[in-house]
């Protein structure tokens, strides 16, 4: 494993989580998932289709704002990324507010498409770089999108994993619980537990999150970083090194 920054590690891990999906969509304001999608596409020889809302080049939608959602409703999107102002141990997401919604202490921008895409996209990957008790809470103050649903609720989709700047969790929807799979360089199960506001399961063997191999890191710092510049000019500079 090469020495790399946490954001570069996240790009590599998210790309692995995308795996061999045939269509991955990336919402607005998601440069790291966007880079991960481009990396996964590159690794698949172009077979992974990427629809990135911020991009013109990597965005085949032509039917206006509803097309992403309709496309997901048709079952044509395999992977999407969501985050949240708060995420709790049952994978509930809060993108609205903290405290009494009528007079909240904190107001986030709003739910965007989370309340829909969390249900309709088979593999939703949760990504939030900040890993703190403020974000990873025991119980969200407002449920924008629930992590699980009763059996009778139509729900082909849901959370598959949670990646932060400290660790990678998988999600077990029957137990309604995250499981710590690996910790990033410099972290331990204990430091992760301290930074996490919710209870979680741990894998029998919590590994160190594998970073990108040198070839992958070159891709991230080279073609992928340059390519993301089209959609996120301010981000490219942060990554381009070669």
């Amino acid at each position, binding site marked *: 494993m090469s020495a790399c920054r946490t954001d570069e590690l996240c790009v590599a891990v998210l790309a692995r989580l995308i795996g061999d999906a045939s269509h991955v969509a990336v919402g607005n304001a998601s440069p790291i998932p966007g880079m991960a999608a481009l990396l996964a596409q590159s690794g698949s020889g172009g077979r992974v289709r990427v629809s990135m809302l911020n991009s013109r080049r990597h965005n085949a939608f032509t039917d206006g704002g509803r097309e992403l959602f309709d496309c997901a409703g048709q079952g044509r999107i395999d992977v999407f990324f969501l985050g949240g102002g708060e995420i709790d141990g049952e994978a509930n997401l809060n993108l609205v507010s903290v405290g009494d919604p009528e007079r909240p202490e904190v107001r986030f921008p709003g739910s965007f*498409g989370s309340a829909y895409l969390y249900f309709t996209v088979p593999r939703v990957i949760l990504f939030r770089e900040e890993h703190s008790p403020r974000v990873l809470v025991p119980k969200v103050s407002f449920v924008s999108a629930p992590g699980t649903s009763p059996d009778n609720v139509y729900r082909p989709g849901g959370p598959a994993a949670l990646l932060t700047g400290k660790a990678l969790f998988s999600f077990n929807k029957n137990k309604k619980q995250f499981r710590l799979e690996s910790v990033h360089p410099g972290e331990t199960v204990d430091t992760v537990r301290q930074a996490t506001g919710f209870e979680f399961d741990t894998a029998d063997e919590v590994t160190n999150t594998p970073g990108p191999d040198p070839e992958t890191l070159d891709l991230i710092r080279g073609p992928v970083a340059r390519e993301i510049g089209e959609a996120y000019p301010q981000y490219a500079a942060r990554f381009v090194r070669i």
Partner: protein
Amino acid sequence: MTTEAVVPGVGELAARIEDGASLAIPPDYSNVPLAATAALIRRNARDLNLVAVPTSGLQTDLLIGAGCVASLEAAAVSLGEFGPAPRFTDAIRRGVLAMKDSTCPAIHAALQAGEKGVPFMPLRGVLGSDLIGRRPDWRVIDNPFGENDPILLLPALRPDVALFHARRADRAGNVWLGQRRELVIMAHAARRTLVSVEEIVDDDFLADEVIAAGTLPALYVEAIALAPGGAQPLGLEGVYEADRARLVDYAEMARSADGFARWLDHFLATKAAVA
């Protein structure tokens, strides 16, 4: 048919938006009518009921900060990479804005119901979200085609007015929107549509089948006003980039009421100068 649709300026558009109207507006990345928004603020519009299609940013924050807004339906409000929308956030925290939180596909679907003239539209997902408890206008029913299969129904949205900015109109009032088809649905669903444009050209957009494919017909357009730079300081795809420095300034200054007032004064002065 005629050039009756062309009116003298964005002031005339603003004059056609009554206090208390429900007003559909586009997301920050698409055709934001900021010159017309300045005109609305200048005419002291009050009690607007904004419908963001499906999100909004600077436009909504300006209207809230200037005291024009009674209620807001949106899936999100933010300045995107520039940060939270300060006047929106402040108004919510002070409890002075009637907020109808929604989710993007719900707003699209409700407008499609308006477009089709049906009273509601079903939508998958959302069940179990706290959004539902705060939306007494939404209903959950058992899918009549299923069994023990709850599904959300959204009442149709038919805003009084749709307002947006576009690159080009022809003299008949046809407006080219290209792939921005959320604006087409918005115009179909709204009772009246007002558009500011960068330019008004002599071609007939409907005569060229390639242009026509991206054109909103004049049939849906009540009035068009020429407003070059009408989306600035936001960008307009293919025409100009966002003025990032002014947006950074806004995100910083609008955190206080005073700073907002100073930014707004400058904005209104700039817009008045070109109007």
